[in-house]
């Protein structure tokens, strides 16, 4: 009898486990983490065109954008709708910046596959104790159903984010960078967008004839190599860790510069350690949402740069010590 009941128990157990697993899978598919994972795929694989409104520092600007992937090659165009009509044309890794008012084209090669909208937490991001991630609500952005994902920082050492994802594709329709007081310090938002529709060739082509333009190329970035370093910060904000250390040759420095990249999984801070120079910058500087802090330390000049609050780069830079 007992021998007959055991298989039943096993079967029942398997059914219960299966149901629980299915429920967990269903719940997981609706988790904020799963949305972000879908987003990280969408920003790499989605073709789109539309109008982007960017707001920062009380300024608003409009951009026409288009991006298409054909045979694995990314074609992208970004055109400012104000100012002097700057345009960026990207084909694969090659990027052309067209300056119509100067009749010049700057050419640069990008090694990475990042896109304009790939900045957000990727699937590699680990949300530890430094951030909470949550689904806030659903809404409409650019005429499409969207879900709002909030990435909230626990402290003042990093910014949070709000991301509106397209319900159908998980493509980010709107993003905001959030300061520790809850205010949005930068926003990028689609006013209108077409997703995964055929993009006309003209939408990806320069608006100007560059036949008589002068062409300039950015010299390739100096080769850098991974190194071990004696330098580290003894006052890293919680969650930050060194994820890469390079030695780089830079145009403005005769000696190679040590470059340590710290990350908390979402925010990145670079620390550059160079030979001291009387003309070096000191103190804090801000460019948009990015901050830097520089100081002298013996015969070295240390600079921390990152998309974090100024207090973070200052704390990391001032904590740099040679073991």
């Amino acid at each position, binding site marked *: 009898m007992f021998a007959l009941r055991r298989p039943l128990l096993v079967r029942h157990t398997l059914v219960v486990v299966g149901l629980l697993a299915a429920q967990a899978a269903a719940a997981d598919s609706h988790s904020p983490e799963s949305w972000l994972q879908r987003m990280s795929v969408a920003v790499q694989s989605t073709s789109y065109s539309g109008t982007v*409104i960017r707001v920062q*520092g*009380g*300024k*608003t600007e409009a*951009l026409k954008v288009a991006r298409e992937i054909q045979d694995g090659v990314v074609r992208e165009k970004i*055109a400012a709708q104000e100012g*002097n009509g*700057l345009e*960026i044309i990207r*084909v*694969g890794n*090659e990027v*052309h*910046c067209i*300056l119509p*008012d100067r009749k010049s084209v*700057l*050419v*640069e090669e990008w*090694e*990475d596959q990042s896109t*304009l909208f790939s*900045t*957000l937490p*990727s699937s*590699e991001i680990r949300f530890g104790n430094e951030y909470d991630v949550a689904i806030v609500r659903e*809404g409409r952005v650019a005429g499409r159903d969207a879900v*709002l994902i909030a990435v909230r920082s626990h402290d003042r050492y990093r910014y*949070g984010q*709000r991301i509106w994802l397209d319900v159908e594709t998980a493509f980010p329709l709107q993003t905001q960078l959030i*300061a520790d007081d*809850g205010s*949005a310090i930068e*926003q990028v938002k689609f006013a209108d967008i077409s997703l995964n529709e055929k993009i006309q060739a003209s939408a990806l082509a320069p608006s100007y004839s*560059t036949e008589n333009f002068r*062409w*300039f*190329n*950015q010299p390739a970035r100096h080769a850098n190599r991974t190194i071990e370093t004696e330098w580290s910060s003894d006052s890293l904000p919680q969650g930050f860790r060194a*994820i*890469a250390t390079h030695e*780089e040759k*830079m145009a*403005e*420095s005769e000696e190679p510069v040590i470059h340590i990249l710290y*990350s908390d999984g979402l*925010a*990145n801070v670079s620390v550059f350690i160079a030979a001291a120079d009387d003309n070096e*910058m*000191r*103190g804090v*500087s801000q*460019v948009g*949402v*990015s901050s830097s*802090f*520089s100081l002298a330390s013996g015969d070295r000049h240390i600079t921390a*740069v990152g998309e974090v609050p*100024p207090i973070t780069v200052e704390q990391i830079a001032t904590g740099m010590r040679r073991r």
Partner: protein
Amino acid sequence: MNDAIRMQISAFVDGELPDNEADLLLRRMGQDAGLRRSVAEYLAIGRAMRGEACWAGVDGIHERVADAIDDKPIEPQLASEPDVRRRSLRPLASVAAAAAVAMLAIFGLQQMTGVDGVDSPGSVATPLQATVEPDYTVPQGISEQLREYYRVHGATATETGANGMLTRFVSLRLSEEQLPLPAEDDAETVEQDIDSSTPPRQP
């Protein structure tokens, strides 16, 4: 600097200098830091007179394009795209003139504060909802070395797969572009949207 040069600079910043003369002026700027400063001052004065914001870096394009023009023989290079092939590419003398840098320029060089305590370390970027005009400064507030640090940081951080957009924004922002003030209607629309979507405060 004589009056002829001053008049030439004035015409240049007003966009009234013929192309051939503008080319010559750019070449001179590439070799004359004093001339570059003068042009930057004229540009800043012009914007101030027009009541426009003074965007840090806006003068840099002239400087960096000028820097890029040198007397070295042009060395043809083949790029990966047909549009570039058979064109002569001149190496940029300044790393800050990168196309990537210029790309972020599209997004506008935002508030660039100086060093040595001009801003307290605890200050943060201007809130989106700010109604007070930010205090824009001229590009001399940032060194070429710091520009390169921003650029390298942007490229490296992007390669890690995180924060690509933000880092691109910042490194591209280190170029130049003067953008008009936002239309009031647009600003109101965006601000209303933001106000209505403020998430609960963090614990």
